[in-house]
């Protein structure tokens, strides 16, 4: 196994991260008192956060190889399915993001969730296991099991603790993502037979598959991941899910779940199907650019805060897919950074909306106005994250978006110019939103007496503020982890197939879309 560096910490590091939340859930099952349930859930998630820190300190950024690998332990031996977990630079950051955000989600649900607390906390902790599992699985079946199993707690979180239209949103979310995932299942099985009857992801990456085969597999992967990202035009479930989900659900959805689609592209499409990746690149670039501009444009028109942030997510995730598929170091590293940044910033924005909602029970922008006066701390926080969201230099998002645009400009100038529009629009909708919510006179008399953020709420936000500036001023903190992995990834894509194949799809598609695709080339 020359591609693996086995875990040598003396204990099963990654398995531990998967098991701790489950153990916490088991404890919850025996508790009745709500306050105790909250405390136990919080402690569990904090223990998991601490348990994930060795990953940060002992990770060797100089190699692309999978690290902390455990296994392969036979799981279903006759089908050659194993329990194998490990991380590289890409998944490491995602795992840390997950372990950081789970305690924050529990913190923000402390008072907001007052019915069926036990069920909610259990669902959150099971979600954590599922999310970490997706990022650390090195066996395709294991990956798939986590990928789909995660739908169940998320469905329940939206459907049980969500807003008035929660059932519709939950079912839409579930069916949409399930349909995509099931295609992934068939593609995964096809890959198993083509790749020599193995589900081992690293082995599959090193296989060579005929282009026609890659085309179909990519199509199935694309459906699954594009729905999850969500990429235009598969994004329609997202605003519904965000609006109806409770705050913690929105945070998890925006910060971690959306990243799984992008992670899927990076983990499977690029290295396993390089040929098809190049074929589909123009199409995906087109979708990404449309997502950036369309998402921003839609955000401009929203009167509901959560919808506004949801559409801004579509726009921001457009940058991520754009960066991934321009296929150079700047683009991919920028995309990865953007993934983390979006997790921090949008997560925080959803937290802030939730905190305002807890006080006024409204998400409508029109119901606010001038609330920076009664809530100065809230005003400061919202301003910081709003600036981060629009990509102000000095904040985290600037670095990510800048790298993505730089990477895009190097290979696809026209595309980069259009994508930049998204940044400008972001400034418009974000600043406008901040102005309408925070500044000016207090428009509604009942808002004058709003209580400012308390200690618990500040505790949830401060770590994210620190990250906003830390990453903003010193992005090497995260980029260090990425260089080796991204470099290797690019080698895998560019070595296998000649780039001239990019034109294939443009040739297949006729009409205005075809012309547009040709223009991109």
């Amino acid at each position, binding site marked *: 196994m020359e591609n693996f560096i086995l875990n040598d910490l003396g204990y099963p590091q990654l398995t531990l991260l998967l098991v701790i939340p489950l153990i916490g859930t088991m404890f919850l099952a025996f508790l009745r008192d709500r306050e105790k349930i909250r405390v136990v859930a919080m402690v569990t998630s904090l223990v998991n956060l601490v348990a994930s820190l060795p990953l940060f300190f002992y990770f060797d950024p100089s190699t692309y190889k999978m690290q902390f690998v455990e296994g392969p332990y036979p799981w*279903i*031996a*006759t089908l050659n399915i194993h329990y194998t977990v490990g991380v590289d630079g890409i998944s490491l950051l995602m795992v840390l993001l997950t372990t950081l955000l789970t305690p924050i989600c529990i913190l923000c649900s402390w008072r907001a969730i007052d019915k069926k607390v036990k069920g909610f906390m259990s669902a959150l902790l099971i979600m954590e296991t599922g999310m970490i599992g997706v990022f650390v699985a090195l066996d395709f079946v294991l990956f*798939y099991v986590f990928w789909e199993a995660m739908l169940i707690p998320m469905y329940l979180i939206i459907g049980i603790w969500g807003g008035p239209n*929660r059932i519709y949103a939950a079912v839409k979310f*579930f069916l949409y993502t*399930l349909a995509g995932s099931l295609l992934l299942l068939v593609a995964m099985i096809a890959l198993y*037979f083509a790749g020599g009857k193995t589900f081992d992801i690293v082995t599959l990456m090193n296989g060579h598959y005929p282009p026609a085969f890659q085309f179909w597999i990519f199509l199935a992967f694309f459906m699954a991941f594009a729905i999850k990202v969500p990429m235009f035009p598969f994004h329609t479930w997202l605003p519904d899910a965000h609006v109806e989900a409770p705050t913690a659900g929105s945070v998890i959805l925006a910060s971690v779940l959306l990243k799984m689609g992008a992670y899927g592209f990076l983990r499977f499409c690029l290295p396993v199907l390089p040929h098809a990746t190049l074929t589909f690149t123009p199409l995906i670039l087109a979708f990404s650019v449309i997502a950036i501009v369309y998402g921003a444009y839609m955000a401009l028109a929203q009167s509901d805060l959560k919808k506004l942030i949801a559409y801004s997510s579509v726009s921001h995730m457009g940058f991520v897919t754009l960066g991934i598929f321009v296929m150079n170091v700047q683009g991919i590293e920028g995309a990865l950074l953007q993934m983390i940044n979006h997790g921090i910033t949008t997560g925080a924005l959803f937290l802030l909306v939730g905190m305002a909602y807890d006080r006024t029970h409204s998400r409508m922008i029109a119901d606010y106005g001038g609330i920076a006066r009664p809530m100065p701390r809230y005003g400061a926080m919202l301003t910081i994250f709003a600036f981060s969201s629009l990509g102000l230099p000095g904040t985290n998002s600037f670095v990510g978006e800048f790298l993505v645009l730089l990477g895009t400009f190097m290979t696809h100038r026209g595309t980069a110019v259009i994508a930049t529009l998204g940044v400008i629009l972001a400034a418009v909708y974000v600043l406008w939103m901040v102005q309408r919510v925070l500044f000016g006179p207090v428009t509604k008399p009942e808002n004058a007496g709003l209580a400012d953020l308390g200690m618990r709420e500040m505790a949830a936000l401060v770590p994210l503020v620190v990250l906003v500036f830390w990453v903003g001023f010193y992005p090497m903190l995260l980029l260090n982890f990425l260089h080796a992995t991204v470099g290797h990834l690019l080698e895998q894509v560019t070595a296998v197939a000649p780039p001239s194949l990019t034109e294939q799809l443009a040739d297949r598609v006729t009409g205005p879309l075809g012309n547009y695709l040709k223009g991109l080339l």
Partner: protein
Amino acid sequence: MFPMADIWLILPEILLVLYACAILLLEPFVPSSQKAILAYFSLAALALAGFTSFRLIHLDYAVFSGMYLLDPYSTFFKFLLYIASAFVVLLSMNYIKIEKINIGEYYAFLLIATAGMMVMVSGGDLITIYLGLELNSICFYVLAGFKRYEERSTEASAKYFILGSFSSGILLYGISILYGLAGTTNLKELSAFFAASSTNSAAIPSFGGALTVAMVLLTVGFGFKVAAVPFHMWTPDVYEGAPTPITAFLSVSSKAASFAVFLRVFLSVFGGVQQDWQAILIVLSVVTMGLGNLVAIAQENIKRMLAYSSIAHAGYAMIGLVVGDKLGIYSLMLYLMIYTFMNLGAFGIVILLQRGGISGEAISDFTGLAKKHPLYALLMMVFMFSLAGLPPTAGFVAKFNVFMAAVNAHLAWLAVLGVVFSAISAYFYLRIVMVMYMKEPAGETVLATSPALSIALLVAVAVVVLIGIFPGPLIDYAQTAILPIR
């Protein structure tokens, strides 16, 4: 000459029939408050038969001059039947008390039906198969009408009887054509005959259309028993009208045994002409999945919904039959075994809600169950997600293997159709979860709990989750028990 030694090899079947007769004899002497004794008696019979089969597990014999086969394949299905019957006994104990059909014959018919299905899966001759099929069908006709004071139940019985005998007739007609062509009804001899003629290219056309007609007739006969579209018409009405434990029994045992025979007959007798029937069965499989899943969405009665869901599952299972290679066979066996547990579990919860009449049959009766009875709601959720095929439940393992077989046989498009319908099916399974968890309960829900039912449910859920996480042993066992194929 009658081979006395062979008797020992059919001991499990003999035991069940003897116990059934004993129940009939004992029944008048058991006071009506003590009928549970007969249930325990039946459980003992099943356990004893299971133990005997376990002792015979490695045997691979054709007994009674090839009329009867004792092979690992049939033993696998016999275990499935014991498990299903034992579950049904546990599900019935309280139910038949509430429905006032608490009479001993119920258990006797249950055991005889089980024996009949065992004869079916072990049949080495079309005549034996037919015999077993009729034996269990007649028991089912009676059991379906057991709530004789209720119109729906008697209607179910009559409907099942008329359509059932009609389809048996069609099956018999197919068998007679095969006999006319080959001069035998023995599976092995038939298989050798058609294999020989398939190598001789002149021979097949000389059958004219007769071989095709026989295949179609057999497909109709078995298709009726497994509830494949378009021979499914009886299913919703019979499932709705029959006593709920019997519905559960029908949906798992009868389906599994019929699939076992379907597979054995088609792979051994028609093994050499697979191309001829594969196309028919592909069409059947697709329309079965499609219609089952789509119509299930519109149901308001949970028994009807589960009826359509069971039609849909027949469609998935049929993919294994269509593929017909090693992977296909074991995936079908695995599918039926897993389906047994998850479907019995789901019916168990339905029975839990039934306190006489039609209470607990409307999907709206599940409203807010999670609030009043969180444990049972959780169990139902697991069964629903398993039926929808989501990991980490057993239902995922079942579907995963079936789709794997399809992709391996270059039928990836069939697998794609399968997953599309699977996504559609999630909608109606999810609906149950939704009404249980996301709606407020309208009134008080009183459950008809009993220790037997709770035990059955807990075992079912444990198995569904355990197989979902550690499917290895069951897959290994199914693989060792597949039919020998050429």
